[in-house]
């Protein structure tokens, strides 16, 4: 496997009216092609900031981000970013929503549109393509947001709490959906979540971040028996294995969550 993403000593300090905020402190790690990397950390530690730096939305104060060996400079074309909310535009049909990225990048070629139509077909949204976002369920909307991100054929996907807006039931099925889509499309992804079980169920490796400023505290490899004939297990399958609970305890201790008692 090839190394797709490499962070070297990435630090970031926000300059705000009321002082400096150290958000990231010498973060280094790599991601192999096809890998799912989970990122967990205490709330407010800098997870979203880390993704913004990798996406090129926010320049690092120090350090470099290499994508496919080249430094990221400005918003990268090779990266797809999925935010917590689906951010579908209510005034556009689902089809026109999922084509938005291609439209903005002026890449509405026949070939690309066909690719998107295929994605809609494969992931069960074809019959809803002419409907509007308010007419879809939360799960379907999230899938549409994923297809919008996939449409530009990114090498690396960044998911920032992409499922936290969904209710628990929907979330379990949508994570299953999304992960099988990502695996089938052979994508590499960084998945930020505050939900430890979700992270364990989706990731090949989990990076635990410290309190702000975020440092890499530890990295854990998640090993689960793959489904027959595949190289991976889906989230719901993982949740049913004995190893799951052990990983949970491990990460939980690692995160060292203090619950304040009064």
């Amino acid at each position, binding site marked *: 496997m090839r190394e797709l993403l490499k962070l070297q000593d990435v630090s970031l300090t926000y300059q705000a009216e009321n002082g400096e905020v150290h958000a990231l402190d010498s973060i280094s790690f790599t991601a192999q092609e096809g890998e799912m990397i989970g990122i967990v950390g205490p709330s407010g530690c800098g997870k979203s900031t880390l993704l913004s730096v990798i*996406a090129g*939305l926010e320049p690092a104060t120090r350090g470099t981000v290499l994508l496919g060996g080249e430094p990221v400079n400005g*918003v990268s*074309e090779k*990266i*797809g*970013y999925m*935010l*917590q*909310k689906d*951010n579908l*535009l*209510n*005034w556009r049909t689902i089809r026109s929503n999922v084509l*938005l*990225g291609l*439209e*903005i*990048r002026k890449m509405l070629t026949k070939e690309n549109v066909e690719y998107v139509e295929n994605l809609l077909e494969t992931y069960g949204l074809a019959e809803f393509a002419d409907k*509007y*976002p*308010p*007419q879809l369920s939360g799960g379907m909307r999230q899938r549409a947001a994923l297809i919008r991100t996939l449409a*530009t054929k990114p090498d690396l996907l960044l998911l920032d709490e992409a499922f936290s807006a969904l209710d628990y039931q929907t979330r379990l099925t949508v994570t299953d959906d999304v992960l099988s889509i990502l695996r089938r499309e052979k994508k590499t992804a960084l998945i930020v979540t505050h939900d430890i079980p979700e992270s364990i169920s989706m990731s090949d490796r989990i990076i635990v971040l410290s309190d702000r400023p975020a440092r890499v505290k530890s990295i854990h490899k998640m090993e689960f028996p793959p489904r027959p004939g595949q190289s991976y297990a889906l989230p719901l399958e993982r949740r049913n294995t004995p190893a799951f609970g052990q990983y949970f305890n491990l990460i939980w201790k690692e995160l060292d969550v203090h619950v304040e008692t009064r």
Partner: protein
Amino acid sequence: MWKRDNKAGQEPLSPERVAYLQARNRRRWAIRLCRIFILISLIALWEILARIGVIDSFIMSQPSRILKTLTNLKNNGLLKHLGVTCFETLTGFSLGVILGNLVALILWWSDFLSKVAEPYLVVLNALPKVALGPVIIIWAGAGMQAIIVMALAISLIVTVLEMLSGFLSTDPELIKMARTFRATRYQTFTKIIFPSNLHTLFNSLKINIGLSLVGVIAGEFLVSKAGLGYLIVYGGQVFQMDLVMTSVLILAVVAALLYWGVTKLERLVLNAVSHTKV
């Protein structure tokens, strides 16, 4: 989504539902009837009091005389004056909307400019624009131009402020989403900012249609040779209260119709482009 009640082909309504709907309809009719009743009584009272001489119809006019003036539209030139006022209002209104949106776009584009402009906008907004009347007449010339500029002056700053604050409070997540696709500032505006502010636009249209009319009438008071505002001033000077009252009445109808037109347009546009209920 809730069930539509009166669509055919649906399950029969429960007795409670039927009772509720009937009560609701009765109430609606009661409200409507009361409104009409009040209007008719007021007009009747006015007419009766004028006839028995309690009020002086020379000063207060009288419904029957207003009616007579109205039926005499062709001869007294009311129609022409009405046309002039409508034209001036719509022109000032359109200019205000277009220019206001342009300025708001520029200020949205440049954070620096918008900070620079802030105190000026605040002062201009608070300033009663009618006070600029004489200045406008001298600059634009005493005529229709001055009246249109007046309407424009009254609606412009409000539009700028309203639209700018709408643009600036667009959901930052939507903007971030567009940025992840490398949207330029122009693309962000046309694809995200403007469409998400259609409701802001229509709110400002609703305010502005009324304001433009205020500007036009104020302008006509000051300079004009035609228009409902001119007619009101003229009628007052020659003590033709019938003319004044009729003009005011027509003005009220015009104001209502213009507002209604904007709401109608809003429904049309919002239904066509968005699928959230208005």
